[in-house]
């Protein structure tokens, strides 16, 4: 069995004004203590046909993760997505 199981992803603040960030509340369960962080990504699926158009909007590390059930909110600015889609240079 996989060590990590995603139990739920709830979209918060939905629907929301354009300027608000995306908020995903993620619940997952971990079977054993993880020595390293988990990496989560928000990917904008540009086209269902091909992964070529996938765009990683943001990625975040989550840790430490002891065995048990955990929750966190993954928040990413929509403006990020706008900027990225116009291939703007990265801004910190």
């Amino acid at each position, binding site marked *: 069995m996989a060590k990590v199981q995603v139990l739920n992803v709830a979209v918060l603040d939905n629907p929301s004004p354009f300027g608000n960030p995306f908020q995903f509340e993620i*619940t997952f369960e971990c079977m054993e203590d993880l020595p390293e962080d988990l990496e989560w990504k928000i990917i904008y699926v540009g086209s269902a046909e091909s992964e070529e158009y996938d765009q990683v909007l943001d990625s975040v590390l989550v840790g430490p993760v002891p065995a048990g059930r955990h929750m966190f909110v993954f928040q990413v600015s929509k403006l990020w997505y706008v900027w990225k889609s116009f291939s703007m240079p990265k801004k910190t």
Partner: protein
Amino acid sequence: MKLLKPSWVSHNGKPIFSVDIHPDGTKFATGGQGEDSGKVMIWNMAPVLRDEDEKNENIPKMLCQMDNHLACVNCVRWSNNGLYLASGGDDKLVMVWKRAAFIGPSTVFGSSSKLANVEQWRCVTILRNHTGDVMDVAWSPHDVWLASCSVDNTIVIWNARKFPEMVTCLRGHTGLVKGLTWDPVGKYVASQADDHSLRVWRTMDWQMEANITKPFSECGGTTHVLRLSWSPDGQYLVSAHAMNNSGPTAQIVERGGWKTNMDFVGHRKAVTVVKFNPKIFKKKQKNGSAPKPGCPYCCCAVGSKDRSLSVWLTSLKRPLVVIHDLFDKSIMDISWTLTGLGMLVCSMDGTVAYLDFSLDELGDPLNEEEKNSIHQNIYGKSLAITSTEAQLSTTIIENPEMLKYQQERQSSAQLGPSSAGPEASAPKLNSVMNGESLEDIRKNLLKKQVETRTPDGRRRITPLCIAQLDTGDFSPALFNSAPILPSGSSMSNQLTSQLSSDSSPGPASSLGLRPGHDPMLTSPPAGAATKGPEDNKDGAKSGLLLTSASKIEPMKALDSRFTERSKATPGVTATISSIAGLVPLDRPKDGGGVSAPKDVKAKDDTSSDSEDKMASINKNLSFSKRKPELLMDGDGVVEKRKKGRPRKDKMAAPMAQPFMQMTPPAEREPSRVAAPPAALKLPTPSIKKAFSLQVSMEPSVFLEVENEVSLIAGSKLSQLRCSRDGRDWNTLLPSSVVTAAGSSDVLAVACQDRMLSVFSSCGRRLLPAIQLATPASALHCSAHFVMALTAGATLSVWDVHKQKALVKNESLLSILSGADTTVSQSLLTQQGVPVIGLSNGKCYCFSSSLETWTLIADKGDSMVQCADFRSCLPTHDAPVSSGPLAVMQGRNLNAGRLASRLSSTPHHLQQSMTLAFLENQLASALTLQSAQEYRYWLLIYARFLVNEGSEHRLRELCQELLGPVHKSAATAWEPTTLGLRKRELLREVLPVIVENLRFQRLFTEYQDQLELLRNK
């Protein structure tokens, strides 16, 4: 009969393929198609049963929903104990679910907060072996196995006590296997497949018992499932879809000879499912009429593709009831409640129906006891050996004491995390964790969340832990009230044999063989066992003096490697060598017991000397508790034993010198193998220049011997130095000390001139030197007893305080029969009972009252291996592993190892074997005067008697413990045994008796008498 279709039980209109009611009747599970996955749902039973509960908003209907199956779920089944739920689906997987007791609230995937799961069920195991859709799963009686069948034409039997272990895969069907059922007594499992056959498999050897094809030859493979069923009395097996004269039937197969003479006729289309009522019924007694000796009968529900359901009683020729048009599509599964009066039916159309019968319609259900007696009569084997809850409900408790005990038991059972108690009747909708509901957690999650930046600038979120994971998913204790003995016993067997077959340069003997080998080696060589400090502690606590690496010892050590690896200190090593007899046992052991200050000097010398000292023969033994820091000092001293003494040599017996440790000799001592006269039976230890040993830990007493210290008037004197809690004393002896031993009370040394001297712990000579007939072979002290085993194979034990001999020059000849038998282990218990372990696996102790050798343990005894008393082990106590009996029998008693296969031996045979074994243990503990062990085995024995219902023995046991109530001069009853008051023991036994309500009269009887005696 009442009929209800609870519309709220649905998978959003998707087909429901399977339904199963939980054994406690408070919930039921459905399995079927989900949105784009398989779906298992658990529902509350209360709203189905009662109208008011259905309307009550606070009572949840759906308890949990699991979407983990990737494709349609074909079957859901609760284990008989109700702790687990197994589900099988089109994704080829079998999942086993368990209620997560301590886990917090959760929601259904993708939903917002509304559809909260009231109960948390977690998938604890996924069983993967099938290569096709799993069509049916079935738990064996007692939940020993789980069977699953699949369209890959196979049936897989899983070990339900050790998921995901597979017991076997039954091959033989040539078509899709679509149904499974276990024989209620666990002897067979039957399967029905699309290959027009019904096969019966034996659980004893997993071979096919019967292949029934005739009634199925005309069948077409048109049904989704073929769920067959076995009657609760085990006499009949009823198949799903069969044909008789081109009409669809459910074929009745008789157990005797697998004859197919009868069938259930009437359905217009193929029968998909047959389900027997778990109860056996007898005719309802009409008020006033004389009781008629009616034959008990069974009740069976048959569901068909023609959407109709029929319920049959085996006493009637016609069905009790036939219900048409209950569903829009084929019936897929039927489940009865354990009470036998309710039934849930599910259909492909996605609905469920509940049928409620009354006693008038079905008859009087037999209670568990009557059902058991039917089983007992037919098969000589009862299903429900232990008292069951069902029994509880029907038996009237007659005694307030009994009631109190029962209530205590029940409340403690419910406290346990494994309880699947009927608390589900009105669980709160909002699960609460730490006083905070899921809602609150969610609201504040974003605010509370800690976000940091890693050095490389990435965001890192610390997740909020909303629930601890409950661990120990498959602790066997959940299945069995007692921990199953670790499989280490068999594993260690393998390992030891592996080791013994090792050729000499193997790791086991490497220390002695490789000249260049560094004797300072502290880390254990591969294959060597690391001995945990725990082990040593055990030995010390019991105050046993234990010598030699016997057969038992390596096993113990190896086991400890598996169980205590984490605790092991690297410094504590025990190299296991070949098993008794191949070559003399080497057991280079760390010598931990060196007193620290002395040792510093010793160590320096050793490093240079030890390589040359290959020849010195020594063995050491794990006795004392050794502190790791001490070990670090001491491990510079490694004893070795010379190789290659011929096996048949009379000297070859691996006899130990207890607690010896080489300290570096001032001058090189030539290798010396004491070659005693040929008449001697037992080897004697060689004389070393000096050695030391730790006698006891509390108070810490060290003994050091230096031979030939000074020459006075031509005679060499030896020095015996002892330090006790920092205070030293020493004394001189006229001859070289061969071996020494000590306890916290006395010290004994045997000299080369066959003199045995006994000192008090302060160095006072307690006895004049005792002249032994032959040189001492082994010496033990325990409490105020001294035991000497001489080379002439005689044994003596003295009580130093009373200055009396307990055992006088007793010859070992009577037990040393057979050419190769040698003494492999010897020990003296705290009570002064000598115990001798032989290389043939037998263990004797000399009973001074009977003046004879008594056999207390035999490794080769098959009874020991077949005895199954695990269910009687106390759950909370750790097994007594420190008593002399346990030490001699090896800590991992093999008992019950072969017993795990429930049905492989006839029950009555196993029962007798277990009984014999337990009585043996009891008697042995008594002879060994090991009070703790006696009590331990007594309680197990009592529990076994209670479980098996052996009233006569139980009564006799109680009677013996109680003794005569009225004093009379004539009785020879002793109020105590081994220092334990018998009536106190009885007081401990009584709560055990309560566990079986059948014995409540017995309980009351003895309880009252005890009360009477107390008031006197």
